[in-house]
C-alpha cells in the first residue's frame, strides 16, 4: 500500500520550485528581518534527550556564527513533536503554515518525518532533516527542498555486513525491532551480508517497543550462529545488551549492530556492553581536531557530553550558514539557496561532510568497539559512504 512517488510528481515538484524562484523577489527589507528557523523535535517522551541535544548543538553552532545567518539574526521557533506521528501533521502545519518558518529542521522520529515530508513537498519549505533516517526521505520521496544532515538507515547498517564478513563471520542471525527503522536497517544489512557471501540463518522481528527478549535469546543460543546483528536503540538497546550478556552469549556469539545499539546507553548497560562492534557515521572518541573542539564547546555550553545527534544539529547550522552567506541571507532566492547548500562542505566533527545527489550526506562510516565501558574507533567501515538512493529521481 506504500505510495512510491511517481517520477512525474518529483519532476513537477522540481519545476515548481524552479518556477517560484523566478517569481519577483520579496523586498530587500523583508530579507533583512530575522530568519525564522523552525525546530520540530521531541522535548518530551522517550526521545526528549535527542531533541534537546540537537537543539543545543544548533544553538552552539549559531553562537559560533554570532547568531546570524547570511547577515540575518536567528529567531528559533520550537515545537515539541512528542515523537507522535498522530499529531505530526498538525505540528508541522503549526511551523510551516502558522509560523511561516524560513527553514524547517527536525525531526527525530521517522513517522513524524513522513508527515513532515508530505507537507514540505507541497509547501516547498526548505527543510533539513536532523535525525530521522527513513530511506524514503532521500529516496522515493526526495525533493529538491529537503536535505538531510544525519544519515540514512542504510548507511548505518550496510557497512556492518562488511565488517562482520571481514571478521570471518559467515553465518548470522538478525534480530530487530519490527518498525521501519529496524526493518530498513535489517534489510540494508541483509543486502550487504548476502552480497558478500554470508548467510542469514534467521531473522527475528521483535514487536516495537517490547523489551522482553528472553525467548529469542534462547532461540539464538540454539541456532549457534557465528555472530548476531541487531537493531535496537535507546532503552531497548540497553536492556538487550544486558540480557544478551547475562545469558552468557556475549563471549560465545559476538554481537554486531548499527551504532544506535550503543549510542547513549553505555552508562545504562555497564560492563555488559564490552565487546560489541558497531558501525556508525560518528563516534564520540573520533580523534580529530574538529571533534575535540566541538565536544569541548558542547560540554562547556550544556555540561553534557555531545553525541551523534548533537553532531547533526551542529552541522546543520554550519552548512546553513555557508549557504545563506552565499545568497546574502535572501531566503526567497530558493533556487540559489538550494544550489548553495548542495555545494556546501564542512569539516564536521564526524569527518568530511558533503551532500550527495539526493541531498543525503556523503560521509565516512566508522567501526566502533566497546572496550572497558567506552567506545573505541577501530577504523573506517566505509569511506565516503553514499546512500544508494532507492527511487529518487534526483539521483540520475
Amino acid at each position, binding site marked *: 500500500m506504500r505510495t512510491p512517488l511517481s517520477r512525474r510528481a518529483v519532476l513537477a515538484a522540481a519545476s515548481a520550485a524552479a518556477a517560484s524562484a523566478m517569481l519577483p523577489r520579496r523586498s530587500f527589507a523583508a530579507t533583512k528581518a530575522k530568519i525564522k528557523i523552525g525546530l520540530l523535535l521531541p522535548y518530551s517522551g522517550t526521545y526528549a534527550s535527542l531533541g534537546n541535544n540537537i537543539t543545543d548543538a544548533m544553538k552552539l553552532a549559531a553562537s559560533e556564527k554570532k547568531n546570524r545567518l547570511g547577515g540575518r539574526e536567528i529567531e528559533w521557533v520550537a515545537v515539541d513533536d512528542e515523537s507522535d506521528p498522530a499529531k505530526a501533521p498538525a505540528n508541522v502545519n503549526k511551523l510551516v503554515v502558522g509560523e511561516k518558518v524560513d527553514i524547517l529542521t527536525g525531526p527525530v522520529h521517522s513517522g513524524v518525518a513522513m508527515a513532515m515530508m508530505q507537507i514540505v513537498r507541497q509547501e516547498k519549505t526548505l527543510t533539513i532533516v536532523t535525525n530521522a533516517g527513513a530511506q524514503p526521505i532521500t529516496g522515493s520521496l526526495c525533493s529538491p527542498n529537503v536535505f538531510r544532515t544525519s544519515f540514512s538507515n542504510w548507511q548505518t547498517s550496510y557497512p556492518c555486513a562488511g565488517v562482520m564478513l571481514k571478521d570471518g563471520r559467515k553465518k548470522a542471525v538478525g534480530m530487530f525491532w519490527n518498525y521501519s527503522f529496524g526493518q530498513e536497517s535489517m534489510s540494508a544489512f541483509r543486502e550487504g551480508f548476502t552480497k558478500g557471501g554470508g548467510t542469514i540463518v534467521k531473522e527475528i522481528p521483535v514487536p516495537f517497543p517490547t523489551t522482553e527478549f528472553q525467548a529469542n*535469546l534462547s532461540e539464538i543460543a540454539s541456532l549457534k550462529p557465528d555472530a548476531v546483528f541487531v537493531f535496537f536503540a535507546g532503552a531497548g538497546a540497553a536492556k538487550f545488551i544486558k540480557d544478551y550478556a*547475562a545469558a552468557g552469549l556475549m563471549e560465545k556469539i559476538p554481537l554486531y549492530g548499527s551504532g544506535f545499539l550503543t549510542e547513549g546507553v553505555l552508562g545504562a548497560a555497564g560492563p555488559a556492553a564490552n565487546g560489541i562492534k558497531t558501525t556508525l557515521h560518528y563516534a564520540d572518541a573520533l580523534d580529530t581536531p574538529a571533534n575535540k573542539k566541538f565536544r569541548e564547546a558542547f560540554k562547556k555550553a550544556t555540561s553534557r557530553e555531545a553525541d551523534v545527534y548533537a553532531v547533526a544539529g551542529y552541522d546543520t547550522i554550519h552548512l546553513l550558514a555557508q549557504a545563506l552567506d552565499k545568497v546574502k541571507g535572501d531566503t526567497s532566492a530558493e533556487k540559489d539557496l538550494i544550489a548553495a547548500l548542495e555545494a556546501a562542505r564542512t569539516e564536521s566533527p564526524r569527518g568530511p561532510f558533503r551532500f550527495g545527489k539526493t541531498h543525503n550526506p556523503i560521509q565516512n562510516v566508522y567501526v566502533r568497539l566497546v572496550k572497558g565501558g567506552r567506545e573505541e574507533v577501530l577504523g573506517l567501515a566505509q569511506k565516503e559512504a553514499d546512500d544508494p538512493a532507492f527511487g529518487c529521481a534526483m539521483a540520475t
Partner: protein
Amino acid sequence: MTTSLVAVQLLNGVEYGLLLFLVASGLTIIFGVLGVLNFAHGSFYMLGAYLAYFIAERTGSLLFAALLGLPVMVLVGFLVERLAISRLYARDHLSQVLLTYGLVLVFNDLQRALFGNEVHGVPMPRALTGSVALGEMQSWPVYRIFTSVACLCIALLLRQVILGTRFGMRVRAGASNAEMVEALGIDVRKLFSALFTAGAVLAALSGMLAAPLTTVYPGMGEGILIVSFVVVVIGGIGSIKGAFAGALLVGIADTFGKVLLPGVSSAVVYAVMAAVLLFRPRGLLGQPALQR
C-alpha cells in the same frame, strides 16, 4: 524445536509470568475489592523502578533502595487513595478510567521532571551477579532465579495473608460483598485505604525487582500495565489465583508466540485473552457478575 529448547522456553515463560503476576496481583486486588480500574498501576511500577535507580545509585545498594523506597511508595499510594481514588468508589467505570488515566499523564511528567528522560541501568546486588549454565550455549543469570523465587515467595505470602489473617478475611469478604463488610462493622474506609496502598507497594516492589533486568526508562509503566490488564482479565478480575494462572498463561503464550509466530507475536497475548473471554466472559476464575 528440540525438547530441550521447549523446556528452556517454558522456563523463560514461567519466569516472565511470575514477574507479571507480581504486578497483576495488586491490580486484581484493587479491582476485586475496591471496584476501581486503576490505570495508574503501571505508574507505580515505574516509580518503584525509578526509586530503585535513584537510591541505589546514591547508596550503591538495591536492598537499601528497597528499604528506603517502599515507605515512599506507601506514602504515595496512601495519598493517591485519600485524595483521589476514595472519591470514586460510588462512581461508574468511566470516571475511574478517566481519573486514573489523568494520573498516568501526571505521573509521566512527574517522572520526567524528577528523573529526566535518560535510560538508566541499575546494577544487580553483588551477591547475585553470577549465572548458572543452561544447556551448552546459554546461561541463566542468578538474579533472574532470585526474582522468580522472590515472586513465588511473595505469591505464597499473599496467599497466607489472604487465607490466614483477619485482614485477609476482610479482603475476601469485601471482594464478594462490600455491603456485607460494612454491615459487619468493619471500617471500609481504612480497609480500602490499606488495600490500595498495598497494591501500589506491590507494583512498586515489582518495579524495583525488575529494574536491574529491564533498565529504567520513561514510559516503562505503560507496557507492563497493558499486559497486566490482560493477565487480570484472563484470570478473572478480583481473583488472585486467577491472576497467577493468567500470568503464567500470558508468560508462556508470549514466549512461544515470539519463537513460533515472529512478526505477529505481539497480537498473541491479546488473541489468547479474546479467546478466553469468548468462552468464559468473566475470565478463568472470575466471580459471576459483581453487583456494581
